[in-house]
């Protein structure tokens, strides 16, 4: 019955088909797509509760992907083409997180990358890490250590290249673009997690640590110095990816907190994208007038750095405990310093949004979807997070 886990993967394909048809551009078509996404999410929940052989880990990550998909579908934006690509990619992402074979998940991720890249420029930047990842799969048969190292490094680089390109391609449709970046991150993280859990001896932890610090440093300094919104969003996504990679070093006990941080990353990135829609530079944030929009922006920006009491904060305790347990105390301190810098970068954006004495001209508010997600995330992550923590823990344990 493991095939049941793939169930939710087919529905996004149906949604992508609706989006590509004539009905896709209409309001009715968008509602249909949203309904299909919600149905897929409900199916994932049903599978979780019915225990139809689908492993909880796959379902948790699948639910993260479908949650992002549903949010993008109900967000008020008009980039139908990107939304269709996101649905195709999400389908592949669900395949990648649901399969227990690296030989399936790695190609699914690469195919996702090929699909969502619109540009043919800088193709070599995408191809080289893709080839490295595929070569890693081939080498793994002979040498676990080198093969897994190549897979981990190749996939991380693919995520970075694709996210950067997708986010930078336009300042509109940011939620969909961020959705692409996040769903790809979920798929890549699932591979990393499986490698770390299944091959504890051969897992390339040194490489993962280096990648984590590279991503966290680039993200933190990038967020601190960014002047354009797309650069800022790329930097924040990169820092969150670095945090997730770092959590991998925590071993079995870090699994639950890692999944929580991953889910919190999705919330934070999607809320940021929704609040910063159609703004070009950081200075333009001062023009935002809508209070709900600025509140959503503050929530997204501050949960990006796990600032207390925002989403992601409570997972910091068990996560740091697991890292200290595994002997990564110094790495943890460096990560804390980098998260501090990320907090300063995030506060730049929040301070711009809330500084007084400005004439604010941009009236447009944030959609109901973003408000709903902000409220739901505050409830699930900060106010009453017990259930979510238990789910994440169960999901993390089921990987073993």
């Amino acid at each position: 019955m493991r095939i049941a886990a793939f169930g939710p993967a087919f529905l996004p394909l149906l949604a992508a088909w609706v989006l590509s048809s004539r009905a896709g551009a209409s309001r009715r078509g968008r509602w249909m797509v949203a309904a299909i996404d919600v149905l897929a999410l409900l199916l994932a929940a049903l599978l979780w509760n019915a225990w139809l052989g689908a492993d909880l880990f796959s379902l948790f990550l699948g639910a993260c992907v479908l949650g992002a998909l549903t949010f993008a579908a109900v967000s008020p934006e008009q980039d139908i083409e990107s939304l269709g690509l996101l649905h195709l990619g999400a389908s592949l992402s669900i395949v990648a997180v649901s399969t227990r074979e690296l030989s399936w998940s790695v190609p699914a991720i690469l195919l996702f990358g090929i699909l969502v890249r619109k540009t043919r420029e800088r193709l070599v930047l995408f191809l080289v890490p893709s080839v490295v990842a595929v070569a890693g799969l081939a080498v793994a048969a002979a040498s676990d250590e080198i093969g897994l190292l190549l897979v981990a490094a190749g996939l991380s680089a693919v995520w970075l290249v694709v996210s950067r390109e997708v986010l930078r391609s336009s300042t509109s449709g940011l939620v969909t673009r961020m959705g692409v970046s996040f769903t790809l991150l979920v798929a890549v993280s699932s591979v990393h997690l499986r490698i770390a859990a299944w091959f504890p001896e051969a897992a390339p932890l040194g490489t993962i640590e280096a990648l984590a610090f590279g991503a966290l440093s680039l993200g933190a300094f990038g967020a601190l110095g960014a002047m354009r919104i797309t650069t800022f969003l790329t930097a924040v996504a990169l820092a969150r990816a670095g945090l997730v990679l770092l959590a991998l070093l925590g071993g079995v006990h870090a699994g639950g907190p890692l999944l929580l941080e991953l889910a919190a990353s999705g919330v934070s990135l999607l809320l940021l994208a929704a609040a910063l829609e159609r703004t070009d530079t950081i200075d333009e944030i001062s023009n935002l007038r809508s209070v709900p929009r600025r509140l959503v922006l503050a929530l997204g920006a501050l949960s990006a750095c796990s600032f207390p009491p925002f989403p992601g904060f409570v997972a910091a305790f068990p996560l740091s405990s697991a890292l200290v347990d595994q002997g990564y105390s110094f790495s943890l301190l460096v990560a804390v310093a980098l998260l501090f810098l990320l907090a300063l970068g995030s506060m730049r954006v929040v301070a711009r949004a809330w500084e007084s004495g400005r004439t604010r001209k941009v009236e447009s508010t944030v959609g109901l979807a973003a408000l709903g997600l902000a409220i739901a995330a505050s409830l699930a992550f900060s106010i009453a997070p017990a259930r979510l923590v238990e789910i994440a823990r169960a999901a993390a344990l089921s990987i073993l």
Partner: protein
Amino acid sequence: MSWPSAFPILSVLVWTPAAGALLSAFPGEDRAALRRMLSIGFAALSLALASALALTFEPGSSPRELRRWIPTLGLSYDLFVDGFGSILVLWVALLALLALVSVGSRELGRQATCLILLAETSLLGLATASDGALFLAFYGACLLVLTLLLGRFEEMKTFFSFQTAGATLAVVYVAISYHLTWVQTGFPSAEIARFSSLVTFPDSQSRMFLLGAAVVAFAAPLFPLTSWVSSATSALTTPGRLLLLGGWSLAGTLFFVRVVLPSAALREGAPFVMVLAALSLLYAGLASRRSWAPLLVGFQGLVVLGLLSPAAEGVAAGRAGMLQLALAFSTLALWKADSEDARGPAFTSGIAVAMFLPPSWFVLRELWSTAPALTALAGLGLVLSMFRLVRTLPPLSPRRSLLLVPLVGFWIFSLTAPSRFMPADSKAPATVEEE
């Protein structure tokens, strides 16, 4: 009198201002009077609850609310007040009400009104939280609210940078203690009371103490981490200044008192921190600027000196100093910082100075027996800063002078209840004495 266990007095007290903030957000800009009425009503209700709590406080039957927040991670929604806490919540409730009535309805916009009430909730949460994660959640919330109250981009940035550095160190401190609790007891917990029973190597204990001291050095702040204070106090209007100087000035030292000191039996780094504190006092006396900044730094140094005193009386004086410092600074906050026409002396400035004197006397008296040179240095700084204070403050307007009445009343009340400042657990000083 003990509160019926079915009535969650602490939660009601903490969340009443937040409810007020939510409701105050609804009236539009043209209905400022209604908003003011609503906000003052909720702040007054909160003050009534806090007064009831403080006046009916009995040692041994203090209210506590313990709910499992995230059982798997050992984090609880744990609120508790001891004698010191009961005075603190009363002070915070009074401070927020004063902040709201200190200016007219037209001067206080919707955003500022909501932020003041949210700051009250987070300060009340800080004073009552007994779980490390919950404490940090309120700490972060309060820091964010005060940052937003500042309103000016550059000031927000500077204040947030320094304070977040302190908050980050506080998170590291609690995370380490959480880990040690997990390792030593076999189950995770961030309950602050457990931290004091952790067994650590002497060198780790010293490092932890220094980490805690670094939190207070950033948050209080102590010399030389002070560059945000002047710009922040200048940027704020009276209500914001009241909350920053009278409320937030307690946050760092509260972390020190609640979390760090009870678990720091070995304080090898204490002399270094004490020198820093004495230098802060000297800086306050010698600084030439007419600003609250050096004064805040200096008197926070005095509080830290008191808290590090080996005798329980000194610790009590330090705790009383925390509160009376906040009181005195709230009195000062009624004046505009960096005022160009600041000339004195005046009767009202004399009151502000008088508020500093009792805790200063007790702290320096306790310190004299252990570190006379440091006491002389700190005393010199104290005298110079008092002199500067009296010399520079102008007389207050009659309306502002009226606001002094509740402050002085509260000051007298706090002087008449010295037993509430004694550390109830007395673990840290006792351990030092035994050793």
